[in-house]
């Protein structure tokens, strides 16, 4: 039994999967440690995905906004707690609380303008603090990396986006949930979290349509995670209809169908249309929200 679960842990690491949890015995620990040490030395292993870095930035902006933490103010008298005690994120965070959607507020992550500006080197102390701090070291290399990891990486990014609140509740979303070749996720230049359903109305296996004026789509909860996809067929833009019993989205024009996660299920076209674009989605205060352009 011991050998089997250690082997499974090792093979998960080698396949780039999150290892299964199990109760580790003392004599097993060193082998896990050896595997981790070796796997962590692979080229590029310590470099985070661009999508992850961008997405976490957005989640943190949300978190800051919801707690109304002082951004750059220094009135906050609390000193950094350096005794190693970490505030319990499982209870401290009340995702989205007290952060009413205020009209066309800047989208999360844009407390400062988009930071992917050219690096400007140093910044001077003193009178002028530039708002956008350039992303360091994210140029050619990371773009190439992004291309190389399109697919699984993009799928995981969508789930991570959906999982912010799960994380705050101590249940990090499983990155393995969505690994299909992933279409683009909508990143509007100006967007906001807009409520599309009550969480209670979207039980496991449930799906619902929404129309926000600027965009329309469907949200569905599968495997605990909520996903949102566009309601427009990627062939010629006909409006998809929810076929709830069959758990799919049907195009009225050419008999094309998509799964609730946006994957193409069937078509009769000369070439397959791409999967449906996705929305960033989150749950906050008992509501399901997607990141979408504001009303016009």
């Amino acid at each position, binding site marked *: 039994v011991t050998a089997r679960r250690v082997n499974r842990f090792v093979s998960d690491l080698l396949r780039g999967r999150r290892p299964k949890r199990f109760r580790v015995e003392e004599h097993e620990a060193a082998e896990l440690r050896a595997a*981790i*040490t070796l796997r962590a030395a692979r080229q590029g292993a310590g470099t985070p995905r661009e999508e992850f870095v961008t997405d976490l930035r957005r989640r943190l902006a949300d978190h800051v906004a919801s707690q109304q933490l002082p951004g750059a103010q220094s009135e906050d008298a609390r000193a950094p707690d350096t005794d190693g005690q*970490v505030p319990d994120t499982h209870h401290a965070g009340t995702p989205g609380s007290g952060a009413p959607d205020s009209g066309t507020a800047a989208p999360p992550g844009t407390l400062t303008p988009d930071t992917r500006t050219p690096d400007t080197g140093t910044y001077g102390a003193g009178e002028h603090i530039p708002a956008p701090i350039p992303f360091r070291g994210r140029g050619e290399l990371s773009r190439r990396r992004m291309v190389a990891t399109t697919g699984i990486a993009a799928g995981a990014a969508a789930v991570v986006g959906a999982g912010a609140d799960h994380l705050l509740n101590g249940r990090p979303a499983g990155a393995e949930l969505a690994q299909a070749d992933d279409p683009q996720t909508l990143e509007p230049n100006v967007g906001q979290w807009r409520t599309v359903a009550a969480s209670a109305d979207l039980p496991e296996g449930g799906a619902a349509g929404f129309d926000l004026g600027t965009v329309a789509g469907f949200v569905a909860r599968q495997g605990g995670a909520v996903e949102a996809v566009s309601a427009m067929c990627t062939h010629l833009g006909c409006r998809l209809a929810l076929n709830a019993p069959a758990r799919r989205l049907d195009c009225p024009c050419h008999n094309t169908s998509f799964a609730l996660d946006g994957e193409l299920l069937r078509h009769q076209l000369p070439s397959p249309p791409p999967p449906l674009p996705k929305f960033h989605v989150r749950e906050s205060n008992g509501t399901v929200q997607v990141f979408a352009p504001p009303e016009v």
Partner: protein
Amino acid sequence: LTQTRLRLVGDDAYPDWEAVYQDNVDRVYAMMFAKVGNRADAEDLTAEVFLAALGPLRVSASVGEVRAYLSATARTVLAGHWRRHYGREVTTLAEMPDLPAPAAVDEDAPNPSASAIAEASDLLAGLPEKYGQVLRLRFLQGYSVRDTATALSITVANAKVLQHRALRRAAQLIEEATQ
């Protein structure tokens, strides 16, 4: 990596939390990956560190203080991860592994990725040649078992056994080193 990097010194402060994030996210992620060996956990733990640290952080704290606090938070978060999911701390982050010198924080200073590579090299150097080869191919080069077998001119079954024995031997080295 060749791009110009911000040069912050230890007693400078960050202008805002985004600067804290952007200056430290790579480092925290690399620290975590070196200790869990997979992306999914490394990403979740990195997120946990920043979510936990943002609240208590006083933005006027110096760069050195912020980094030390993030390191302390990372240690606690990692320990929690292992205890919660595996009942035992399989890996730990050393006390202040890379606390910057107070005078200057240099981006060329050893980073966690470099130390992860050094640690693996040490481990491989202590192994018989065949063992080192199979582990290098499987873990560092990402070869499949089949490709590894081909590269070493052995059967697939033998490659599996060899990998298994090599890892056991590496584990023994680690145990001996910590005793």
